[in-house]
């Protein structure tokens, strides 16, 4: 058995209400929606960036986002996260169950004794066809878990997968996910979970929470109830109305939700084309509410037009100027990645000044001996301005000159600003650097740092 030593979640800053998506949609029911510079990679990076990185010997990346729609997966994330080269890097794609698939396999690999610390990350960014948002489940999120052989607050005590022969009811039409009623059937499902229930060894009453991650959760509950489970044990999905259905991430988010609720013994059943069943024991050392904080801290998209802008599906407000291909190259990213990706700066050994950009000599004291230092991701604004003529979906672009905590200075764009008036930056304000897409009009996006108000 293995332990979840640490976890992290990432929700986009923005939510969109169903009432904005469709006249028949309800206000108050929300979906977490990526800003125009976010994707599965940035969310995955954000979820994993707070986790300890030492001694990780593998990364298991899960997403339901098709592989060719997003060029970068496990290996790229390993590199972004500055993990050693040559570690195990596996991708789990094509199923909304892939999040628990990865967790289940991580547990098995740790059990095998060949691996000590595996990073499981699930991340999904799916957009339905424009106009069909209400009939398709979507919501954007990422979750990262560090699965380890070393003891941690959460233990996976049982993990098993059960195959089943029935099809997904969601499929792709063109580039977008949609609900296909032809495959909305429950025959195989019922048989599958009936066989799952038989495998549960512990007494039903010993569980504090039973999570059913399925659109057929009610039916699953019925099968469980027949096997002696009590309705009060079922952890209802209280996230879907706040984040939307986050695909491969959703089961893991529901698990984190119950962990943060302080539930001790949890049964997680994740259904899609079969079932993954995990039994988890939670002994939290301290209360953690990081997911709750992310759920409660958001900004609403104000109109359907803004939502289209955010999807880059049309730009009705910006001027005639459209950005052409910007210059970028793989070679440049590779040779400059210490600086661009890992925020490695130079510290003058003589006067202690820390520089983000490389130079042969210290500008201040002219000495040439430097040591390499990693710059902090938080800082204070030294100067800023709003650029009204730089092409952007949500102008103006705010440029921020920030003095990083512990030394070094960066100048970057502000992000998560659909409504700049609500997110005004001023001298002295605190900011956090987050990794976001910079070159967006290319099949292969490039990522760089932007500032988010703290």
């Amino acid at each position: 058995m293995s332990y979840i030593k640490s976890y992290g979640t990432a929700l986009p800053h923005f939510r969109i209400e169903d009432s904005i998506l469709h006249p028949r949609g309800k206000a108050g029911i929300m979906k977490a929606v990526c800003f125009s510079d976010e994707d599965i990679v940035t969310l995955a990076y954000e979820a994993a960036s707070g986790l300890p990185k030492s001694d990780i010997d593998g990364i298991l990346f899960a997403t339901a986002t098709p592989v060719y729609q997003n060029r970068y997966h496990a290996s790229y994330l390993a590199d972004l996260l500055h993990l050693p080269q040559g570690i195990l890097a596996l991708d789990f794609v094509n199923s909304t169950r892939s999040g628990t698939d990865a967790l289940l396999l991580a547990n098995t690999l740790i059990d095998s004794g060949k691996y000590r610390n595996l990073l499981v990350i699930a991340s999904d960014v799916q957009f339905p066809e424009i106009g069909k948002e209400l009939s398709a489940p979507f919501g954007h999120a990422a979750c990262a878990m560090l699965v380890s052989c070393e003891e941690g607050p959460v233990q996976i005590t049982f993990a098993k997968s059960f195959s089943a022969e029935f099809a997904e009811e969601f499929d792709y039409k063109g580039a977008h996910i949609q609900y296909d009623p032809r495959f909305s059937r429950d025959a195989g499902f019922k048989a599958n979970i009936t066989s799952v229930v038989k495998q549960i060894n512990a007494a039903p009453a010993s569980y504090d929470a039973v999570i059913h991650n399925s659109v057929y959760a009610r039916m699953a509950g019925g099968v469980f109830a027949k096997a002696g489970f009590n309705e009060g044990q079922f952890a209802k999905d209280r996230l879907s109305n706040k984040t939307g259905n986050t695909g491969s991430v959703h089961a893991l988010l529901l698990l984190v939700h119950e962990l943060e609720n302080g539930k001790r013994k949890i049964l997680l059943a994740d259904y899609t084309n079969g079932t993954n069943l995990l039994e988890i024991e939670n002994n939290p050392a301290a209360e953690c509410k990081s997911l709750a904080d992310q759920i409660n801290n958001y900004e609403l998209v104000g109109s359907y037009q803004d939502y289209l802008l955010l999807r880059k599906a049309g730009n009705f407000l910006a001027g005639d100027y459209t950005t052409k291909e910007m210059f970028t190259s793989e070679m440049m990213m590779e040779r400059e990645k210490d600086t661009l990706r890992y925020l490695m700066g130079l510290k003058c050994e003589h006067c202690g000044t820390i520089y983000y950009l490389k130079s042969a000599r210290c500008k201040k004291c002219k000495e040439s001996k430097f040591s390499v230092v990693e710059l902090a991701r938080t800082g204070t604004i030294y100067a800023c301005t709003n650029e009204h003529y730089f092409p952007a979906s949500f102008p103006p672009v705010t440029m921020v000159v920030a003095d990083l905590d512990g030394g070094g200075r960066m100048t970057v764009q502000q992000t998560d600003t659909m409504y700049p008036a609500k997110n005004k930056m001023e001298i002295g304000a605190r900011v956090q650097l987050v990794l976001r897409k910079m070159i967006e009009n290319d099949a292969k996006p490039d990522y760089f740092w932007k500032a988010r108000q703290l």
Partner: protein
Amino acid sequence: MSKLTDIAIIGIGVTRFGELFHQSYDDLVRDAALQAVKDAGINMDEIGAAWLSTAFPEIGVFKGRSGMDLSEPLSLYNIPVTRVSNFCASGADAIRNAVNALRAGECDVAMALGVEKLRDRQPQDSIVKMMVEYGHPFLQKGFTAAGTFAVYANRMMHEFGVKREDIAAISAKNHFHGSMNDKAHHRKACSIEEVMASPMVANPLTVMDSCPTTDGAACVILVRAADIDKSKHNPVYIKGIGLSISTGWDLPFFDPNHDFLSFEATRTAAATAYRQAGITNPIEEIDMIEVHDCFSIVELLTYEDLGLCARGEAKDLIRGKETQLGGKIPVNVSGGLLSCGHPVGATGIRMVVEVANHLRGNAGERQVKNAKRGMTHNIGGPGAIASVIVLGSDI
């Protein structure tokens, strides 16, 4: 340092600045060069070496990539011609190179000509395009030129109590001056309120705090002072010339030493020029200045960098109207870049032509009375490069 050979300007020429659709790059070269050659009273073939300043061929008309783009329109062949590129200080640097060649004895008559043709493209297809699409894909991405100077404005306001009105007053003053310059791109005076109410470019700088992109050319002919023939020349002397690069293209925005209140390059270039010219108290010893007001804030903070006042006191000069025509030290009586426009490679030379006209007493309606000493200042890149030239009517 040994005593430098005295250098004089004997010929000046400047085209109209503006949206000059009827004139090509070559036409502009001919227009400015022929005026200067005629003014100098020389034969074109007396020119022994020339410098061509065009800062941005790739966002203009792909002309000015080498010295041959000066030779061709003038049929000026079989002499050395060098293209100079140093951002907005290119024109001043062309003059510096011509001065040094005369001092070194490479030639007896030198030409420095600056020309830029930016209006054949939409404004957003030239300088803005350069910032958006070219250069490093990440570093500084999000800035246009206006933003790189707007951060100075915000810092000046935060640190020194500079008011938004003080910055706008620079633009109003220069537009008033420009209304008297028949070669300026924009010849309409405006109020401080109009400047502040014009569309925002980069907070707090508005459209009227920003110079336009412009077509234009300017030219000077230089000789050693010893070679002047007083019977036909009306010379103006180069008393001091300094150029300095004090930071890089990206560095100012990533350098924790940088305070966004001053351009070190201006201070060091001015120190060099003042030393050569023997100037110790510029506000008393200089009668007029052409300052690089690409954005109004740049003129304001340059008052301090040129030593016209102490740090933090620039706002008092503009509030007291000391830099207006008739004030203690008129700045940008031509209308500056804000009014004349900014054909980048030509600007530094246009400023020298303006000062020369005042020193000769030929500036007409906007003549600075009894002007004996004048100065030009350019800043290039994000405040990285600066040039300062001190000119005098006497040797």
